[in-house]
């Protein structure tokens, strides 16, 4: 187990290294010039050259790469070259809690919807209830996320005035302000996610219900809530957990657009803005963090898997 863990961690680090390298070079292909655009309104023709030199953008690309990589090893992700000149580490440190709050709450909302929906449609397979749940789940999956988000805003913020339309308030300023700002975006992200999870729970639950002991219990008329919740459901969750790593990526991606609608400056927004602004250090930094989250979440999921399913051993 330990050897396996070490191997996986080394593997993850290698992937991270490759991601960092790839991203560095891929970014250089982007057309557009961040410095020229930033200095659009500036009268001094030398200013562009000056800044390019200052940021080392005039040096050969491999020199830029080694320099950047050296800094990366010391944990320095550089500074934004567009606008704020903010330390990328700080930008990410500020954005991360927002995205994690959003992803976390979306996950909770998704589960609240998905677990009962998945269970009901598995137990009452092919009943009208199953069909309704399935159709609703698919509807959740079928809406463009920005559209759903805007409709939520129109209903709950503009018309009903129940919830704020935009923004983010840190948890430190109180639970309700934090929570109220996150509900709508979390629903927007959580709903399609819930649909995916519900479908997964349904199919793995169906499989478990086919198992011998359940069938026996069922034939004896012993299919109780207790049996389902205590015996069948945990077993059904095992395959669901395996795809959780992927589901996390899905959540992270959902935040990209929804953060833009709700004016929440989380990681997704930082990343997209970075790409649009050709802000190389910001994109490099945030991609490394996003992929690190993804890679290590997957690692965690694998480990979790061995814990909940004792039949699996990694040697």
């Amino acid at each position, binding site marked *: 187990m330990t050897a396996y863990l070490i191997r996986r961690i080394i593997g993850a680090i290698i992937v991270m290294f490759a991601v960092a390298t790839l991203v560095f070079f891929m970014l250089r292909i982007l*057309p*557009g*010039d*961040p410095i*020229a*655009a*930033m*200095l*659009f*309104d*500036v*009268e*001094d*023709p*030398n*200013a562009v050259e*000056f*800044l390019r030199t*200052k940021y080392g953008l005039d040096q050969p690309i491999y020199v830029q790469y080694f320099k950047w990589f050296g800094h990366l090893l010391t944990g320095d992700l550089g*500074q*934004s070259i*567009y*606008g*704020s*000149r*903010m*330390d990328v580490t700080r*930008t990410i440190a*500020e*954005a991360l809690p927002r995205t994690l709050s959003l992803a976390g709450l979306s996950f909770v909302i998704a589960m609240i919807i998905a677990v009962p929906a998945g269970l009901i449609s598995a137990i009452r397979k092919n009943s009208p209830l199953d069909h309704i749940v399935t159709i609703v789940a698919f509807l959740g999956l079928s809406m463009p996320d920005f559209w759903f988000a*805007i409709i939520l*805003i*129109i209903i709950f*913020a*503009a018309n009903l*005035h129940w919830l*704020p*339309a*935009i*923004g*983010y308030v840190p948890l430190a300023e109180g639970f309700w302000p934090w929570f109220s700002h996150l509900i709508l975006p979390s629903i927007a992200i959580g709903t399609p996610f819930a649909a995916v999870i519900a479908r997964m729970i349904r199919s793995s639950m169906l499989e478990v219900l086919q198992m011998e002991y359940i069938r026996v219990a069922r034939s004896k008329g012993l299919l109780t809530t207790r049996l389902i919740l205590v015996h069948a459901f945990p077993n059904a969750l095992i395959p669901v957990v395996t795809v959780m790593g992927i589901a996390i990526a899905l959540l992270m991606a959902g935040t990209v657009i929804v953060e*833009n*609608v*709700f*004016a*929440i*400056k989380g990681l997704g*927004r*930082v990343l997209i*803005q970075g790409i*649009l*602004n*050709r802000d190389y250090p910001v994109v490099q930094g945030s991609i490394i963090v996003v992929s690190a989250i993804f890679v290590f979440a997957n690692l965690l999921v694998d480990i979790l898997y061995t814990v909940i399913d004792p039949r699996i051993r990694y040697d």
Partner: protein
Amino acid sequence: MSTKKFDLSTDQKQEIKDQLRDAYDFDPKDPLFGLTRENLSGSQISRRSVLRLMAVSGTLTAWHLLPGAKKAFAQKRGGILEAGWAGVGEITTLDPARINQVLQFQITSSVLSGLTHLNADLVAEADLAESWTVNNSATEIVFKLREGVTFHNGDKFTADDVIYTFNRSKDPDRSINGGLLKNVASLEKLNDYEVKFTLSAPQASFFVKTTERASGRALTIVSRGAIEELGPQQYGLTPVGTGPFRVTEHTLGQSVKLRRFDDYYDPERPVLDGVNITPISEPEPLAAAMEAGDIQLIGGNPVAPELVDRFMANSEIVVDIIGGNGFQSVFLNPWRDPFKVPSFDKPVSELMKEKGFKVRLAIAKAIDRDRFIERAQFGRGVPAFGTINPAMGFFFDENLGETSNQKFDAPAARKLLADAGYPNGDGFPTLTMKGGPPVRRDMQIIADMLKTNLNITINVEIREFQVLVPEFQKVDYDMLRIGSGGDFDPDDGIVDFMQSTSRLNGANRDKSAMAFGHFGEADVDKLGDEQSRTSDLNKRRELVQKVNRITSDKVASAFIYHPVDTLVHRKEVNFPSRSRIVGLVDLDRVSFT
């Protein structure tokens, strides 16, 4: 110019009438039009003087009086104003040395000060300077500084701060705005409260463009102590200045919190206790937040035109519209077929014989500006035929729309195109019009108009700003939908855009192949320089309008419209007319009713 979009109350109409009467009340033979020399120098030019000068020149209309035609509310001190900044995801920096957007200096204008500040008539008035004197050749300006001013951190403001700011702005390592100071040969400290600028050449726009606290940037006074203490990065977030508000908190991409500065030099200001500014990039959430009262005022980028009617229909919301300060146009690449005109240095009658010029003119004449404004801007805007905009009031040429070669005339446009060898658009190449995301709708409307009126096909291509700008500066386009905002002085339109050496005229083009970028003309170069040096308002006006007319008749670009400046706030916010400066959102006199 039409004012049909504005519903004025009877009181307002009367007030406008009174002001007009006063403005026109002068003896035509008096060279100073009843104004004294003092009216024109000192610490500011009064609103009355400006109106008078406009009346003299015959350009005074109700437009100019709109900002003044205002209600008086009972105002109350205190309170925190919640403001949304439209069309932007984050206020990247508030350090004047790194600012390049209007939506940024809208905020610094409430936090930092300059030697001068624009007033609602776009005339410079004293801010940190108490008064100034100009020598006879108009190349030396001595500013007398206000005494007893302190920075937010308690430091005293003296001449040394002006020198420090100047040197910082000159240094490309610390500032991107050094170019704004290129006409300043030197700056001297005469004593703690007097500084002397020496200019390389007289510059009429000096007080409006250079020493101004908002758009000036290069001489927006920064605090040396604070920069050294905070470092440039933090200073960019929470700048320290001498303005009415101080920045207490700035979470990038979430909010900027401004709070009242108790030791501001004018004890009457600010009226509010503070302002929270939230950047909101999407239109629908912005509108929802406004309607729900989550925000009470909108600043930042212009409010999307489609939201304006929606706000106007809401009795809780006040929409205040005045003539905006910019121009919007379509650039036609003179180095590419079918717009090719390698030299504009000949009379229009000669140019009219050239195929490339005929096509340019055909395009310009085929654009129905009224219909465009109706559809693209939902009726709000002024047809444009040049760069000089109505907000520049005194300089704006109202008759240009009637006399310009570019006046809309579809049959004439079709004939020109046929003369150029494309009868009914036959054989006309499919061209591409590039533009940024905000002009998406605009471009589709223009393309549709050209299809309808000339039967030619224009592909619309949306480019990101970061890609568009380098292409613009390289003159790499067939047609480019671009414009300018935040133009307070004629130099913004003429010197920056229309001269062959203008910085926004293909700065990065291949100079061996292209003698100029999008336009170059000897008279524009010469008269443009001349107007820039002329401080006599009437003479300058004459030169400005002459240049403007040449750029219009020779189709420097197909001019489309001048935007309006729309300020949206909730009813409970009292935004006084004095603070209603086009393009800016000065919050120092704003209060709750």
